[in-house]
């Protein structure tokens, strides 16, 4: 299998500003996420599904494409990615509380089912992997528009690729196969990011797949496959950047498998003690992507304790404010359930 494992040290230099910005988003996502777990424990909200542990994979990927312009199909775990693309902590908090003005779905969907037309984040269902062939379809549309003369291939104000995320377990679905296949057959500007956290709820990857890497499967579709350390934000940024260049240059699709871990339960409904040892979880907590990047940045002199303190304080303010505003916001009225069944005919 032609799988390439990318290491951070191969990456070309990333500006200190960008590195700090990456750190900031990872931190913001984490604090927002932790707060949400707390709200659930307090009985204030019904449900949370978490990005904890996945922040490096998501933030590294999100900074690599034309955010808000390229089509993004994040999955339910992509809080950190969506923050980078432009969704706000308040947007998210409105979602977990199910409050009026929630931008993804008007609070119709469960939290973390992202959508934002202004940011070209396409609406997601909960049925895993359905978004993979959608992303291939949007990538097909990009190539189509260019071929039939509806779009200038180099216009950076227009979407030039579609990027989609899902978990490793979800690649067992036929939808993934069929989506990957279109991407390969038509060599579409398409990037599939598999966040491999080793479990689909309780089911370990060796019960999903007889091969150790999802990326091993990319070649079967004529798609380039890359395995990357998903807890290394710069490595993630780098491999995604490469995939983005390939897509923009018409060189075809890429699958990136980010190896990572979810040190928390699958969701607020889960209890992970039945299916994995505490030792395993503790071991991965030591590989925490934020602590790791903090160490890299501090050692490189790019981040001081004062910077960290300032960021922590800022994150707390933002999260407090988002929570407060979400709590103050009313629920949509019951009859709002009736809207938006059909789009009106254009007149």
């Amino acid at each position, binding site marked *: 299998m032609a799988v390439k494992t990318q290491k951070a040290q191969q990456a070309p230099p990333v500006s200190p500003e960008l590195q700090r910005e990456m750190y900031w988003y990872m931190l913001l996502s984490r604090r927002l996420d932790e707060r949400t777990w707390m709200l659930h424990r307090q009985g204030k909200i019904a449900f949370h599904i978490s990005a904890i542990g996945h922040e490096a994979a998501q933030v590294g990927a999100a900074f690599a494409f034309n955010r808000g312009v390229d089509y993004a199909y994040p999955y339910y775990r992509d809080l950190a990615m969506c923050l980078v693309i432009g969704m706000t902590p308040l947007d998210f908090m409105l979602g977990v509380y199910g409050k009026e003005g929630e931008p993804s779905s008007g609070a*119709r969907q469960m939290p973390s089912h992202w*959508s934002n037309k202004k940011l070209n984040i*396409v609406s997601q269902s909960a*049925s895993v992997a359905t978004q993979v062939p959608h992303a291939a*379809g949007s990538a*097909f549309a990009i190539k189509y528009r260019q071929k039939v003369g509806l779009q200038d291939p180099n216009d950076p104000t227009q979407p030039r690729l579609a990027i989609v995320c899902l978990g490793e377990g979800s690649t067992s679905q036929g*939808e993934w196969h*069929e989506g990957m296949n*279109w991407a390969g057959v038509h060599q579409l500007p398409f990037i599939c990011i598999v966040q491999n956290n080793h479990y689909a709820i309780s089911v370990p990857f060796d019960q999903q797949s007889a091969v150790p890497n999802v990326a091993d499967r990319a070649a079967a579709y004529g798609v380039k496959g890359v395995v990357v350390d998903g807890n290394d934000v710069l490595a993630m940024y780098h491999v995604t950047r490469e995939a983005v260049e390939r897509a923009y240059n018409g060189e075809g699709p890429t699958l990136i498998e980010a190896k990572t871990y979810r040190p928390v339960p699958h969701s607020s409904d889960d209890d992970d003690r039945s299916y994995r040892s505490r030792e395993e979880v503790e071991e991965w907590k030591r590989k925490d992507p934020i602590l790791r990047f903090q160490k890299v940045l501090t050692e490189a002199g790019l981040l001081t304790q004062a910077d960290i303190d300032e960021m922590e304080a800022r994150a707390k303010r933002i999260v407090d404010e988002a929570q407060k505003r979400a709590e103050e916001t009313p629920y949509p009225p019951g009859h709002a359930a009736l*809207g938006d069944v059909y789009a009106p005919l254009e007149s």
Partner: protein
Amino acid sequence: MAEMTLIQAITQAMDEELARDKRVFITGEDVGPRGGVFRATMGLFDKYGADRIVDSPLAELSIVAIGIGAAVAGLRPICEIQFADFIHPAFNQIVSEASKMYYRSNGQWNVPMVIRAPYGGGISGGLYHSQSVEAFFTHLPGLKVVIPSTPHDAKGLLKSAVRDPNPVMFFEPKKGYRAIKGDVPEGDYTVPIGPARIARVGTDVSVYAYGMMAHYATIAAEMVAQSDGIAAEVVDLRTLLPVDKEAILNSFKKTGKALIVYEDNLTMGYGAEVAAILANEGFEYMDAPVRRLAGPDVPGVPFSHDMQEFFMVNPHKIADAIRDLAAY
């Protein structure tokens, strides 16, 4: 005006929409050089090329899903499912995705796509080339479900479907592809999605049908007019979802007797909904039991000749049912 077959009208609608709007493209199995197994896309590949008439892999889920992804990205896909029987692999994409996208995104993202599929029996197709599948999709708010029974409507409704901002299931009665002929206006016109059509005016019995059965119901209505002087009104439903309740009730107010005809198996076929509407809102006008004439409750249409005939509804069976009801 030119006389043409149902399938010619469908081809013409697609041809004109492709010419009108570059965002329109077609994908499906064998739609390219082969022109579709029923020849609905005949000539379009030569005229519009491989970029716009795209042979898909043999995978219906992806045909629909690619359509969805392209539609949200601003294109106007026409997705052909080779036989309605093979739409089931795409069911999740239609139920969970196409039908719910607009609602779940609070009206942000819409899916302007058409899914065309030939359906229905009586063509020696056996269990897997004869199915009626409309019942499943009429249970899905967010979708529109359209079934034409005349070339005029086929062209006009298909054009409306292509221009509709919502996902439209467009089921074509394949037994009528070449058997049903009629006048079709030249050039551009649309038939709105929604309203039913009174195919024949009458006062004694209301016959509700669509697709091939609407065609047959009209024949049957003439038969009973001739033979028994019964004035049956034929309501060609045309759009199954959203339901045209008003048209259903208006006819019933006149006749007080309803025969609902469909070629699908009886239980939970679309006629159940029509009957349920009448049983509630038509109660005051009801002069007889609301009757359904449909296929038997077996898993499919058998291949072998006599069994197939046994299964299928035909003009004679409809005429008998009208007579029965008129005599009630």
